[in-house]
């Protein structure tokens, strides 16, 4: 765990949060974080090293506890989870706790809400915030009563001394406690886990009432006096620019105020910069949309205008049929393949995907002499602040980023291009501006999940045991978005299912193959684990069928016995391991085997299959969490594959909010089904061919299985990720079930494009 200490809060900071000045306030100052976490966070998204102060807790004179949530709420329930760690350590009554959403500020440490790391990063630091305040309140009470602090306990918003049957409410202790020296967080005792009364249970959904009444404010819902709305015609091809445009018809639309040409991105990569294009600014969204439809723009489509998904697929396929850069090596794969009794070989393909969060990108900005204030549904408020400052050419200190609710994020809203657009337009118009992306903009101008090809070859001995394993992966890497020249997958991306895959085979080699990018590549929920798990888990199923053996037994055999796989065993210098230490979060094959055994038990894997129904299995470790999935499929009246039932068993280590963990896993099944059945973004002439949910469908209610069973393994291991790791095993489990049902092997996704 990072080094940290607790400091008293600056008054100005409190005022900025809208909290009463006075009372007791605490924050955590962290040392520089260790290795950058995966998915790779580019410059601008990373935190400057060095000592930072931050604020997380304030207790007002009336005893009201305000806890800052510094991570963005996008459906994972973080506002209902992280603050409870503080409250439980403190001994606070949740009825007297207020949750305050943090603005973007490096003082909070990392705020980039991606990589499934809010709880695993915050579990101990948040407890230390609560424990430190508790120690001070207890000390104040002990001093007042002249009793040893060790005889006092804090619970239900009061400090109690059992021997003398005395109690003082936090309210009555705040003033005295605030005068005490702040103890060193390192020496403050945390409560034993058994004393954390709420943590681990099904915690209530803090924001549920606001959501179901329409009161919750998402980015698109912010309304300021005199606010205008902008809709932007972005270049259809990344790197394209406006040659000229005729705005006469657009300006003639009633309500349209101005047309503004936005600058094209500069530098070696587009990064988080706005894409450029022409903005139509109007008094209503409707007028702006009509104005945009009336714009006539001549584009120079630039260097990416020849990007074509059909030919790119062939190029990816060629890339994985040739040797690539060796990134993992143990034993002698070539020798073992020559000596093998038989080999199994397959190539897999997964297309580009789009996030399509229900809320398309939107942000509100206001610029005046004092600086810029934005309201944004952003996963990464610090990157938003940096990008807005860069776009305006002002110091970051002049930029305030308020974080609204996010109508879904899935990685898209880590990239603040749309926030910078709002800031540029607000300055230009001299009025508050709300930028509204249309769904078409979202589908066509996003940061896409990488298209990929995977080649796998296995050598089997006479008994069928895998002795050699060769994996080649090719995909345009995320770093290409920040430096267009980069075409080799990064170590962090390879750490998502290639470098960290434990195998029993003594001879293993993995190679990364080059693939240049022609669109903005971005991380999407579970990132490269999507295609790596699809390929590996499908391939192991293929080996099982080639051997006419039970896929579960073969999967367990290929993974090997319960053990902690070391970098030496894996054949790598270092396992990226999502930025976590391998000692704290080992590659624990025993935990993966356990979820496989448990999910096959729950799903009746060994029972006779009903006619017309088949099961498929897949398992994958990602974001330090172990997940196994069994899908049951049959055919519907039209002969299309239907997913009838899904079982998912996850071991995410220590759990804070059990109901939200269940909810994330249920949602991951549906998200994974959309990838398996529907998702495909394709390019022609450098532009996206899909437009909206009509041609980029996602799962709807009639496709949802009758039952999604989720079981969470009880564990006291350090917390792993929750938001993403449920996704990767879903598509291969479905594809494996489809093979069991139809004998058609889906080596590419989505299944609907194969007529399944």
């Amino acid at each position, binding site marked *: 765990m990072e080094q940290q200490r607790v400091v008293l809060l600056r008054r100005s900071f409190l005022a900025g949060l809208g909290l009463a000045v006075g009372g007791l306030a605490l924050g955590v100052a962290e040392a520089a974080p260790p290795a950058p976490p995966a998915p790779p966070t580019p410059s601008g998204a990373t935190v400057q090293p060095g000592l930072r102060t931050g604020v997380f807790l304030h207790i007002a004179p009336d005893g009201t506890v305000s806890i800052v949530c510094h991570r963005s709420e996008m*459906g994972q329930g973080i506002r209902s989870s992280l603050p409870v760690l503080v409250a439980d350590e403190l001994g606070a009554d949740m009825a007297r706790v207020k949750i305050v959403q943090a603005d973007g500020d490096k003082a909070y440490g990392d705020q980039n809400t991606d990589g499934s790391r809010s709880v695993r990063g915050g579990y101990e630091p948040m407890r230390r915030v609560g424990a430190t305040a508790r120690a001070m309140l207890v000390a104040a009470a002990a001093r007042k009563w002249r009793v040893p602090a060790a005889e006092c306990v804090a619970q239900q918003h009061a400090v109690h001394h059992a021997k003398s049957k005395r109690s003082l409410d936090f309210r009555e202790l705040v003033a005295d406690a605030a005068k005490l020296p702040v103890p060193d967080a390192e020496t403050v005792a945390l409560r034993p886990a058994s004393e954390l009364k709420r943590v681990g249970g099904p915690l209530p959904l803090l*924001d549920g009432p606001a959501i*179901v009444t329409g009161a919750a404010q998402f980015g698109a819902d912010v309304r300021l006096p005199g606010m205008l709305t902008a809709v932007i015609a972005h270049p259809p091809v990344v790197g394209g620019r406006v040659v000229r445009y005729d705005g006469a018809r657009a300006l003639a639309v009633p309500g349209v105020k101005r047309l503004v040409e936005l600058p094209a991105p500069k530098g070696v990569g587009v990064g988080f910069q706005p894409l450029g294009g022409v903005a139509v600014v109007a008094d209503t969204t409707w007028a702006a949309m009509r104005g945009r439809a009336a714009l006539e723009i001549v584009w120079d489509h630039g260097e990416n205008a020849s990007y074509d998904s059909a030919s790119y697929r062939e190029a990816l396929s060629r890339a994985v049929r040739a040797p690539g850069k060796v990134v993992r090596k143990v034993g002698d794969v070539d020798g073992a393949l020559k000596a093998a009794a038989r080999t199994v070989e397959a190539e897999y393909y997964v297309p580009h995907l789009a996030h399509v969060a*229900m809320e398309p990108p939107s942000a509100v900005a206001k610029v005046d002499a004092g600086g810029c204030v934005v309201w944004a549904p952003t996963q990464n408020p610090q990157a938003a602040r940096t990008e807005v400052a860069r776009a305006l050419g002002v110091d970051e200190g002049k930029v305030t980023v308020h974080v609204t609710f996010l*109508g879904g994020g899935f990685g898209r809203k880590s990239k603040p291009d749309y926030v910078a657009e709002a800031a540029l337009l607000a300055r230009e118009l001299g009025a508050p501006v709300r930028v509204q992306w249309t769904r078409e903009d979202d589908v066509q101008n996003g940061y896409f999940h990488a298209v990929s090809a995977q080649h796998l070859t296995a050598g089997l001995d006479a008994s069928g045991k895998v002795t050699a394993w060769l994996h080649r992966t090719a995909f345009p890497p995320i770093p290409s978005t920040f430096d267009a020249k980069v075409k080799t997958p990064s170590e962090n991306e390879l750490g998502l299912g290639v470098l960290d895959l434990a195998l029993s085979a003594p001879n293993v080699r993995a190679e990364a193959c080059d693939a240049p990018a022609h669109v903005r590549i971005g991380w999407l929920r579970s990132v490269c684990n999507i295609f790596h798990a699809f390929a590996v888990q499908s391939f192991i199923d293929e080996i099982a069928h080639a051997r006419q053996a039970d896929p579960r037994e073969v999967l367990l055999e290929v993974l090997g016995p319960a053990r902690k796989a070391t970098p030496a065993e894996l054949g790598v210098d270092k396992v990226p391991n999502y930025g976590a230490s391998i000692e704290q979060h080992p590659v624990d094959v025993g935990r993966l085997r356990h979820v496989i055994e448990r999910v096959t038990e729950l799903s009746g894997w060994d029972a006779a299959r009903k006619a017309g129904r088949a099961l498929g299995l897949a398992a994958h470790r990602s974001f330090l969490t172990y997940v196994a999935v069994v899908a049951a499929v049959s055919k519907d009246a039209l002969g299309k594959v239907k997913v009838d039932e899904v079982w998912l068993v996850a071991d995410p280590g220590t759990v804070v909010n059990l*109901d939200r963990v269940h*909810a994330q896993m249920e949602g991951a099944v549906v998200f994974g089904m959309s990838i398996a059945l529907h998702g495909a973004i394709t390019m022609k002439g450098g532009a996206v061919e899909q437009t909206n949910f009509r041609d980029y469908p996602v799962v*709807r209610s009639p496709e949802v299985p*009758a039952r999604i069973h989720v079981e969470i393994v009880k564990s006291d291991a350090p917390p792993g990720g929750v938001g993403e790791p449920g996704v990767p095993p879903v598509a291969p489990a479905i594809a494996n079930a489809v093979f069991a049902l139809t004998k058609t092997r889906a080596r590419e996704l989505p299944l609907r494009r194969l007529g399944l």
Partner: protein
Amino acid sequence: MIILKVNGAEQKLEVDPDMPLLWVLRDVLGLTGTKYGCGQALCGACVVHLDGETVRACVTPVKRAAGGSVTTIEGLSPTGDHPLQRAWVELGVPQCGFCQAGQIMSAAALLRKNPRPSNDDIDRSLAGNICRCGTYTRIRAAVRKAAGLPTE
């Protein structure tokens, strides 16, 4: 001028009669509980009731609502405790929450016509409402709970 009732209150509007009801609600009346998700009647985030029937506000010109009565999520229940809203909170349905107003408005219309819906009825009636977070199984359970049916 277009005159209509929104959540029981009469509104006199000087707007383009072709403006979709969605933007009248959000941009003119400031009722932002009804969401924009697709603009093409594909996702259901904008579902409201017009004279008791569900409509997609994003493709309903406001002139079609002239003289009519519109109910949005803000007006579903004056105290925010419609049985569906209660069930939604009790069963922890929402994740990001963006689609849920549309889901609840579709479900409210379903329950008015079919007070004891089967899972298939629910799936069919809500097929036009996308939830990208994937809360569908809890939506099913919450509709059944609101209807007084067993949630399984």
